[in-house]
């Protein structure tokens, strides 16, 4: 049957009985289940259950010294370790009243682009692309399309090389401390990075062509699925906001000071999920690449805009699948931003100075855009620089509600399809969000019960 809008629970569909339990959705980071139970055409149960073991990071921060904060923070997530470490040092910098030199800000931003590139390539080419070929993994794709996989590995490596050079190690970062870095790369090291990055321009073009060409291979109902929602991301007057900014909503069009995030983001507990859920203006909101482009499209660089025009991306887009397309556009944007930053740094040169840190009592809120969306670390320190309290809001936490609301929107449209196809569609929908579940618990398994 067809349906052209939002559907409430309990609506009846003739004849359908579906029992789906996808236990541990694959090709996502972390553990999550999809549960769908339809009896005689009535949806009795439809949920996105996060089953990742809780690790209690907000408690673990308590009593730790400021020098440990970013080291502990990056351990929240291996995929976006740079985002967590960066957000953590930004929180501590705000608490202690430290500012960065222009040079160190440039390195922090470059480091950030390195992770954004590695993470987006990993998601699009390794986790999403196999669906286009109905392949169980990129390893299967490697047999049929070896050149594409080698290209993806080179681009992934590029992201790692950039961040390894700038912060000592992308997984897990070593060199970022409040006020700057413990060390900076040698000019020789940066020239090596430049040579590798410059040589990747044709790979970036190849990736754009491949991703654009595989979009039509996904089911049309998934690509076209639309659900109007709220998008929240950072925004900054001077740049396409990734590393810094304040918080903007597509619903209100208001910009909220990052320190006042609690005014617009509400956390709650869902009894079947080890991750907390969040909401703002509606039952859920979405964060990530699509949210960033929907809020800040005009600030993309020329190369990013050119790809957006080529693939027909015009904000605001309310189709969740287009998060993949948004990631592709950001990949191009970040590649050219990184390339130019490297050139600029090599041109002006840099000098390492060890930051002098004097702890002081107070609160600091770090907010960055992790590859998957808005990331907040909120710390309170005592006079000795010991953490008294920490609150972290991570992007996948924010997207759980949106994923479940999308299920409720999509399921009625595909309810008469064969059960395995429904399960697969829901899995692909989850993957679109690039969930990073160990972060959010704190999720993927599809359970048709």
């Amino acid at each position, binding site marked *: 049957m067809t349906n052209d809008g939002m559907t409430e629970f309990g609506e009846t569909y003739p004849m359908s009985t579906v029992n789906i339990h996808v236990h541990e959705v694959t090709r996502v980071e972390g553990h999550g289940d999809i549960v769908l139970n339809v009896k005689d055409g009535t949806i009795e149960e439809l949920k996105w259950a996060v089953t990742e073991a809780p690790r209690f990071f907000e408690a673990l921060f308590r*009593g730790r010294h400021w020098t440990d904060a970013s080291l*502990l923070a990056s351990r929240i997530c291996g995929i976006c370790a740079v985002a967590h470490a960066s957000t953590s040092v930004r929180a501590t910098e705000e608490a202690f009243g430290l500012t960065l030199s222009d040079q160190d800000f440039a390195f922090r931003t470059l480091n950030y682009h390195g992770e954004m590139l590695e993470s987006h390539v990993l998601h699009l080419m*390794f986790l999403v692309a196999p669906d286009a070929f109905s392949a169980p993994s*990129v*390893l299967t794709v490697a047999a049929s399309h070896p050149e594409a996989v080698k290209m993806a590995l080179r681009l992934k490596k590029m992201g790692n090389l950039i961040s390894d050079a700038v912060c000592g190690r992308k997984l897990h970062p070593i060199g970022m401390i409040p006020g700057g870095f413990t060390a900076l790369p040698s000019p020789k090291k940066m020239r090596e990075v430049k040579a590798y990055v410059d040589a990747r321009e044709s790979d970036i073009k190849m990736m754009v062509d491949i991703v654009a060409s595989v979009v039509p291979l996904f089911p049309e109902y998934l690509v076209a699925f639309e659900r109007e929602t709220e998008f929240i991301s950072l925004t900054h007057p001077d740049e396409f906001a990734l590393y810094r900014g304040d918080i903007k909503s597509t619903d209100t069009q208001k910009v909220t000071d990052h320190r006042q995030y609690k005014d617009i983001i509400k956390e709650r507990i869902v009894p079947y999920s*080890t991750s907390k859920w969040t909401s703002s203006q509606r039952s859920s909101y979405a964060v990530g690449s699509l949210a960033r482009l929907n809020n800040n499209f005009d600030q993309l660089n020329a190369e990013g805009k050119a790809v957006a025009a080529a693939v027909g991306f015009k904000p605001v887009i309310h189709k969740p699948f287009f998060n993949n397309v948004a990631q592709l556009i950001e990949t191009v944007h970040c590649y050219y931003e990184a390339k130019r930053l490297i050139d600029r740094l090599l041109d002006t040169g840099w000098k390492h100075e060890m930051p002098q840190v004097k702890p002081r009592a107070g609160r600091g809120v770090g907010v960055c855009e992790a590859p998957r969306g808005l990331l907040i670390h909120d710390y309170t320190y005592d006079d000795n620089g*010991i953490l008294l309290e920490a609150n972290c809001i991570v992007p996948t936490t924010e997207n759980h509600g949106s994923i479940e609301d999308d299920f409720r929107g999509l399921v009625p449209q595909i309810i008469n399809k064969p059960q395995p196809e429904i399960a697969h569609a829901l899995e692909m929908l989850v993957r679109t969000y690039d969930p990073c579940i160990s972060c959010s618990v704190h999720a993927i398994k599809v359970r048709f019960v």
Partner: protein
Amino acid sequence: MAKPRLAFFSFASCEGCQLQFLNLEDEILDIVPHVDIVEFREAIDNHSDNYDVAFVEGSITRPADETKLRHIRDNAKVLIAFGACATTGGVNRLKNFLAPERQEKTSTVQNPQSAPSQAQIIEYVDRARKIVYGDQWNLPVFDSYPTRAVGDVVKVNYKLEGCPASKKEILELVKALLQGRAPRFARYPVCVDCKLAENVCLFHKGQFCLGVVTRAGCDQPCPSFGNRCIGCRGLVDDPNKNAAWDILTEFGLKPEDILREFRLFQAYAEEAQTMKI
């Protein structure tokens, strides 16, 4: 010889060690033809109970994890504890030390002067649940018991130490498995490699460092990038902890600072001493 069947599993962790396997960008396409990867949730769809080698990432924190881990042990010929969360409990173990504040807003949290008793650990874990989940901390979904390493629950054949596990050691282990031999890992402290790398000792720069007692094999990325060794690879065999303690005291650290430093990744050793785990 049939190709070894590899399976990857993860428990409480950041899943960074699985990513570290995928980070072998220059080598992975050369490894793949020699092995069958039958389970790797982060990257592939297949599920299988038929495997020879299980890479197990993460700490054990729930009864259900234990059941799953025993099942993996029953299926695998070789079980590898993959990364610090699996080999020692890693940072997850900090929750076992989450002593309550002695008074409101002081710095003494998480710094009991001696390793807590089993009863205290259970109390501390509940405290962690209350801090994170508030008055709904006791919902079954938030069930969590004191953090255990994989080797605390089942027999482990090999350990890949570190947070994250070292790419070099992952390759050495895969090569060793293919060649039917035991892997060769460093059995001396980080200090040795750091000296060979001609790094200026961090103590001479007025910083402190756990490289003196921590197992080498990581190519000392932290001291080489101007930051201290935080002991993520666990204690070297027969560590001179007293000497380390003396050095740290000499550099003006108070016992609570030293304990805090050791506990980031080496709380397992304290627990082992008091509880004979």
